[in-house]
């Protein structure tokens, strides 16, 4: 697979305005993030609240201006485009947002909302546009007669279908789904996930699927990237990542998701991370995860880890793989297995 979308060393920060004399401080929401999405691939981006997932997505769309880094779509450097040029290229990369209730303009009927990209990019109007919108509605599993309806008349799941239809209207190469299913009931969530999978198979569109829900991402993504406090801590094929997490944070995250099976869940050994995610305005030095990391070493406090390749694909940023016990691309689970053999007290 060749990379369709390349993101290289992307950083985004927001100004912090606090006090009269502390101006100039900035919050680094995204810090040196790199990844690639291949054609027809779904890349899952997971992480806890505030880790910078949405900001990454918005930076790709140039909805926020990145501080540095490059975003290339089919080799075109999006970060270098401006004005009209940028607007033209926006058709290749579209977005579906989290909140199905506010992502559709309440004052517009479906035909206008979903048809807006067609008007803007292809200058379609009136009947021609409506025809295309009808097709799109059918494609996302809605009745073509919904054309003259207002968003408020739809349920959350239906609205999310509308949002997807709008994103697909101009045949984009990449669709960024920012928590596109988080606001929905499990069952509805599944319907949308099924729809996305179906569309990917049918149209070969690539997706950047942002979610905090690991199990949802696992369902959909071929590859997964994990963010913590603005940095990508681990990335790799989902099979590998779920079965053999290489980063302690990934491990903890997976372990924290309760398994819907009482027998298993009760017996399962769980890692409960102490404390809260750190304050993004004042991140810890070195590896930002070190204050909560059960395996933290001295080096973690001072040195920012570099990406290291992982067995089975992907990369990880963790000193455990280069110094200390030297996992060298192996799974952290090995470490735990080794440890629990010796002393059985690493859990809560």
């Amino acid at each position: 697979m060749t990379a369709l979308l390349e993101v290289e060393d992307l950083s985004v920060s927001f100004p912090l305005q606090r006090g009269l004399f502390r101006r100039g401080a900035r919050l680094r929401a995204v810090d040196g993030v790199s990844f690639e999405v291949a054609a027809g691939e779904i890349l899952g981006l997971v992480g806890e609240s505030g880790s910078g997932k949405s900001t990454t997505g918005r930076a790709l769309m140039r909805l926020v201006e990145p501080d540095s880094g490059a975003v290339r779509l089919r080799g075109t450097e999006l970060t270098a485009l401006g004005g009209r040029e940028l607007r033209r290229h926006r058709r290749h990369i579209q977005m579906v947002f989290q909140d199905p209730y506010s992502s559709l303009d309440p004052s517009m009927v479906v035909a206008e909302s979903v048809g807006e990209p067609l008007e803007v990019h292809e200058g379609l109007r009136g009947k021609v546009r409506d025809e295309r919108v009808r097709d799109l509605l059918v494609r996302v599993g809605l009745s073509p007669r919904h054309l003259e309806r207002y968003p408020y008349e739809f349920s959350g799941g239906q609205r999310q279908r509308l949002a997807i239809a709008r994103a697909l209207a101009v045949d984009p190469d990449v669709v960024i789904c920012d928590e596109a299913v988080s606001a929905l009931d499990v069952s509805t969530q599944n319907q949308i996930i099924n729809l996305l999978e179906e569309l990917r198979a049918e149209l070969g569109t690539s997706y950047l699927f942002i979610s905090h829900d690991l199990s949802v991402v696992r369902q959909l993504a071929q590859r997964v990237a994990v963010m913590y406090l603005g940095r990508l801590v681990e990335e790799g094929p989902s099979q590998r990542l779920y079965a053999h997490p290489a980063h302690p944070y990934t491990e903890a995250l997976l372990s924290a998701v309760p398994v819907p099976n009482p027998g298993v869940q009760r017996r399962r050994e769980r890692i409960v991370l102490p404390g809260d995610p750190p304050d993004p305005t004042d991140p810890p030095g070195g590896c930002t995860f070190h204050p909560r990391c059960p395996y933290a070493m001295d080096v973690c406090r001072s040195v920012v880890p570099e990406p290291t390749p992982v067995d089975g694909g992907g990369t990880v940023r963790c000193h455990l793989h280069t110094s200390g016990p030297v996992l060298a691309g192996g799974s952290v689970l090995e470490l735990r297995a080794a440890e629990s053999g010796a002393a059985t007290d690493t859990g809560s």
Partner: protein
Amino acid sequence: MSVLQVSDLDVRFATDRGWVTVVEGVSFAVEAGSTLGLVGESGSGKTVTSLAMLGLLPPRTSRVPRGSIRLDGTELVGMPQKRLADIRGNDIAMIFQEPMSSLNPAFTIGDQIAETVRRHRKVSRKAAMERAVAALDQVGIPNAASRARSYPHEFSGGMRQRAMIAMAICCEPKVLVADEPTTALDVTIQAQMLDLLRQMRDELGMGMVFITHDLGVVADICDRVVVMYAGQVVAADDVDHLFSHPPHPYAEGLLAAMPQVGGAEWLATIPGQAPTPGAVPDGCRFHPRCPYAADRCAAGAPELRLFDRHRATRCVRSDELLLRGPA
């Protein structure tokens, strides 16, 4: 002996279309020192039921025409608000979904906890504050004494929820009702919270009602589960049995929709949408969405059938069906 016994509870609300029954015939019991899970889709009446248990339903727009709620033998339905207020926060406490908005932003954390203590215990302001600090310490807030002087916005989401728990347990209630206490939290924080709640339940021997959407959480913390659909209890079971042999098709559907470890690429969904109160279908309320529906399902409203003290279903075909859960 059940510390909390809800039987045959109806709740009605005044709406544009007149009085609408939102919760109907709900019964369950909570044992001291164990956790009862209350699950169901959005709008199935979980929150309404829990509010009814604390007498927190809006006074003029709601009504409990039928049923009984007994807390340690005391009947709460029909009790005057004044006496209910004495019981709330003292014998039965509640924590809510949004730790962000459930704490009053205008007062310090310590103040809000101490207020509860002073309301129910005849103690000095100072002693109440000491109790508040102790409770914060108990729920694992570091430097409890100084953090008690913080305002809610100075706390992270997890710490706020800890503070809510501290507030709930500071008078050592017999029953703790937790309405989706972890839904708004990150999974790593959720794991902390589940451990903490389990620990508090065991330390204080409380009975706990735990409301959630997430069957994973149910599997983690609940001993028994009650499944609600469209305002009714459709299934009740202990947790292991429910996950292996769901007693009701709806329960099976919920379980099937859970993303599974190494699960299929194609996800199960419960087709259609839950009915809105006041527009429930005749017969079994679930039958329009049920893959097992037969003609008689549409005919008469099924009763909740008890198998034994713990297990019940509201499905007329439960005997003939062989329902399977993931576990």
